[in-house]
């Protein structure tokens, strides 16, 4: 599925990017990136700070022009048909850009007005969005006094007041608690079921696991693009070993020394609460070698086992040394 979606650069897709490049002076922010997102997909666009995530989104929104290559939204060229693109897209950033001194309803009406909705449409959308965001009974509450989860859902409602077909969410859940985040993701999938295409960026990999497909961008280049489960199979350099020992602090010191002496090929050794996670480059057989090193250091090993990598493990591995695509 992934290979096909990579090669089928269909500009009629809701989101399509073809050899997209953006240079600022001598700095290449986005470097020959191509991907497309089919209708109704929830697509995660992930990368470290400064990797080119936001620059890509800004080119898709037509806010800046590409140096070369193309960005299309619903078949419209973002650089030349910006107005048509704007009619198709909703955008929500982590700042939420709501007016705190307006009520929830007033905020929705304001954004509806900006998008040129008629008063009938406005009336209908206000009640739909209030219901969607679970804001019944709080329609006339000042937005400034709503808690984070409510504000976040209201901001999403305002971003989609004009029924966009494509929605861009740029770190929409920063600083929101887990329960509200789950509710927010329910809304995202509700939209996707109705055919809306969603591109979302986040720094939280547990959240990225909720996307149907994710793309990793690093230093301007697309380094991986696939479903989460597939990325875990293909993109991880090395394997993760979870170790439970009598004295984890001492055990970490011993393993770091072993790493520096190249006794075992360890990519990373770190404390995880009472446990140790070690990323081992190489064979399963190193498990015994590692256990041996710990035992020789008078460490009691209670358990040592390979565990499935998290998406964060995979992400860090891909960004550090990308596995070549194709």
């Amino acid at each position, binding site marked *: 599925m992934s290979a096909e979606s990579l090669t089928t650069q269909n500009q009629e897709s809701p989101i399509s990017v073809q050899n997209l490049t953006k240079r600022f002076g001598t700095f290449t922010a986005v470097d020959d990136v191509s991907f497309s997102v089919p209708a109704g997909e929830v697509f995660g666009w992930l990368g470290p700070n400064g990797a080119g995530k936001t620059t890509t989104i800004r080119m898709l929104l037509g806010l800046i022009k590409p140096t070369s290559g193309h960005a299309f939204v619903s078949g419209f060229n973002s650089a030349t048909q910006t107005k048509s693109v704007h009619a198709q897209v909703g955008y929500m950033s982590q700042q939420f850009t709501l007016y705190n001194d307006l009520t929830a309803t007033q905020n929705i009406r304001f954004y509806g007005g900006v998008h040129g909705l008629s008063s009938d449409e406005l009336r209908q959308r206000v009640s739909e969005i209030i219901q969607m965001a679970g804001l019944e009974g709080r329609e006339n509450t000042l937005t400034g006094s709503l808690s984070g989860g409510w504000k976040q859902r209201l901001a999403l409602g305002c971003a989609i007041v004009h029924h966009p077909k494509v929605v861009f969410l740029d770190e929409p859940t920063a600083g929101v608690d887990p329960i509200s985040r789950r509710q927010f993701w329910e809304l995202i999938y509700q939209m996707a079921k109705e055919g809306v295409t969603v591109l979302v960026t986040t720094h939280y990999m547990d959240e990225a696991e909720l996307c*149907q497909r994710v793309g990793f961008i690093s230093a301007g280049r697309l380094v991986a693009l696939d479903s989460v489960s597939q990325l875990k199979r293909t993109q991880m350099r090395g394997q993760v070993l979870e170790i439970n020992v009598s004295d984890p602090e001492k055990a970490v010191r011993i393993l770091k020394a072993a790493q520096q002496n190249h006794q075992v090929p360890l990519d990373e050794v770190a404390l995880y609460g009472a446990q140790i996670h070690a990323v081992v480059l190489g064979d399963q057989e190193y498990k015994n070698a590692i256990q041996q090193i710990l035992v020789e250091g008078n460490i009691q090993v209670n358990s040592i086992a390979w565990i499935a990598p998290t998406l964060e493990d995979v992400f860090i591995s891909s960004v550090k040394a990308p596995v070549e695509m194709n």
Partner: protein
Amino acid sequence: MNQFAISATNLVKEFKANKSVVTAVNGLSLQVAPGETYGLIGPDGAGKTTTMRVTLGLLSRTSGESSVLGFDSMNDMYEIRKRVGYIAQQFSLPPTLTVMENMLFFAGIHSVSSEQQKKRIPELLEFAGLSDFTGRLAGKLSGGMKKKLALACSLIHEPQVVMLDEPTLGVDPVSRREFWNLLGNLRAEKGLTIFVCTPYMDEAERCTRVGLIYDGKLIVDDSPANIKRLIPGHLLEFTPSDFDAARKLCTALEGVLEVQTYGEKLHVFVDDVATRKTQIEAALTSRGITQDRLREIEVRMEEAFITLIRQHQESVELKGALPQKSEILGDVR
């Protein structure tokens, strides 16, 4: 004096705003032993930052007791300051000073002798991976590097305890991992006590002990492994073809303890995997709902957190008291 690095007993902090009183910390008790990495986790507005500030003596407490390294937060705050490194949530390093000048500035504030400075500063810059950036202005550092510089500055006076208020907010995964690895090194090599507030559950897994704060009270206080064991039953995950129908159906099935949503997937807590898995499959099929990859998965801190908060809310509702912050949670079902 007590043997704890950080201790709070029935701690209460009220803020008076106009004529109303907001109770930010409401009878909170916790003890952190030396060398622990303690994570205080909870939703926005649960009282994490207030607890940290009261404990440090930056805010006065309304009642109860709190101390750091045996020093009372209100009476001995200068003793605490000598021994504790602190990174506030919205910290700012002077942006027009270089990395080195920042280090010297903080060394000066903490009256670190010049011999000590000569020894400590290169060590800390090396530790934080900033040795090659000593001449760079703090304002020109990346987000992750700023956090690392803040950590290095907070360690200049060789504190025994560091208190970090959401230190990785807005930081990308690579820098976040590096930051936590630095904290792990401090624990492994120096035996430092680390107290950290965070809303992120994957960070809670990196602590030796976690306190879950809600409405100004601790509702759980244990190791991550034990907290996950508190959650009854086993967790099944699957992607249904009809989300709403599958959710309603599963909630009503026998042996189902709780249903949580997870993006397009459902998380169903059941009493027994073998019997309930078959039962759920059959029930879905009979309603014409197909499903993908129904399987047992491990409970993470995030699922545990959601279950524990719900249980807490339900017990509060049973007692007839209105949950103060129920609006934060809404109807999760």
